[in-house]
């Protein structure tokens, strides 16, 4: 049995316990409180990425926006009596024309876990890309993100990313994918509006991991 160098009445123990109690009293971040399957990381390294993580919250925000816009519009209509100029903007905000990029879920040969080795060779710095149906997830040493994908021929579009949170029709990063054996190469077709995706995806080569 290993011997313990600390004794119960040790002064160091008293200070240490007081210190740890102070540390552990830090409030738990909201992202760790909410009951969502995919957590939203707060990456100090990539700027402010504190995001609302639950569908309920998103729905509440969207509903609140709708009510505000609709309510203001209604008040203005009542005040000025010119609904023709107000209705379109209210309707446009409440029901935006959001259509995902054309295409469908990733084909079976793209489904799965992909890893892009780091130039340093350090496995900790490797990037991981997980494609599953209509979802993607990217994990790098700096954090991870998730969102939706659509595959249309040789084009794969990443959108609805949790990090940049640009609603459709914006926020679409378009890449061309080429598969050679177990090797997946991604070539950018546009300037990805979610800059954080560019580094792990643009001109990157991923190797399929055995499932």
């Amino acid at each position, binding site marked *: 049995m290993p011997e313990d*160098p600390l004794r119960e009445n040790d002064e160091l123990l008293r200070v240490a316990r007081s210190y740890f109690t*102070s540390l552990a009293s*830090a409030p738990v971040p909201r992202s760790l409180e909410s009951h969502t399957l995919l957590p939203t990381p707060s990456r100090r390294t990539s700027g402010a990425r504190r995001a609302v993580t639950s569908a309920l919250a998103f729905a509440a925000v969207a509903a609140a926006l709708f009510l505000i816009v609709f309510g203001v519009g209604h008040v203005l209509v009542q005040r000025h009596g010119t609904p023709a100029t107000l209705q379109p903007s209210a309707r446009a905000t409440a029901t935006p024309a959001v259509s995902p990029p054309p295409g469908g879920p990733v084909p079976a040969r793209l489904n799965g876990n992909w890893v892009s080795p780091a130039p340093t060779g350090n496995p900790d710095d490797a990037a991981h890309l997980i494609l599953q149906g209509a979802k993607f997830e990217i994990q790098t040493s700096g954090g991870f993100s998730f969102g939706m994908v659509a595959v249309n021929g040789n084009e794969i579009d990443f959108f609805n990313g949790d990090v940049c949170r640009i609603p459709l029709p914006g926020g679409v990063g378009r890449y061309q994918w080429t598969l050679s054996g177990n090797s997946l190469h991604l070539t950018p077709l546009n300037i990805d509006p979610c800059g954080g995706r560019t580094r792990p995806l643009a001109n990157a080569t991923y190797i399929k991991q055995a499932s």
Partner: protein
Amino acid sequence: MHQEAIVVATYPRDDAEHAFERAVLPERPRLYALAVTITRDLAEAEDAVQDTMLSAWRSWAKVRDPNRPGPWLTRICVNHCLQRQRRINRLLRSGDTREVLLRPPIEFEGELLDFDRAFAQLSVRQRAVFALHVHHGYTLNECARLLGCRPGTARSHLGRAVAALRREMINA
């Protein structure tokens, strides 16, 4: 409606997901408290817990006792804390301090400030063993299992940590 609301709401949820949510997600505050005491950094601790959740989800099918995932999660979390600290150390060694926050997470005063400065100078493994043993109540054998080392190595880490803390606290 925001598109991500639709995404989350329509995402098919099977039994594994429900079981994972029930068993693992409530552990997050405990893991966060654990990670904070090892990393001394609120953001790093949060990230370590997020990484833990990701790793846990990926390995969920292989967990031995899905009803008691605590010890398994603790080990994953400790590993992620160590990994993240190694990454910070690499950045510091390379002189790239842009991503490293060199300040304590809480404004300490007096002897707690002295202790924080001394604690910060320990290696991450020394910090982990010290925090796990002193604050979280793990025995040295359990600490060894969590860190994936021998009990003698854990004792050595603790002994060196205690010696360094005493030295620094006296000199403070």
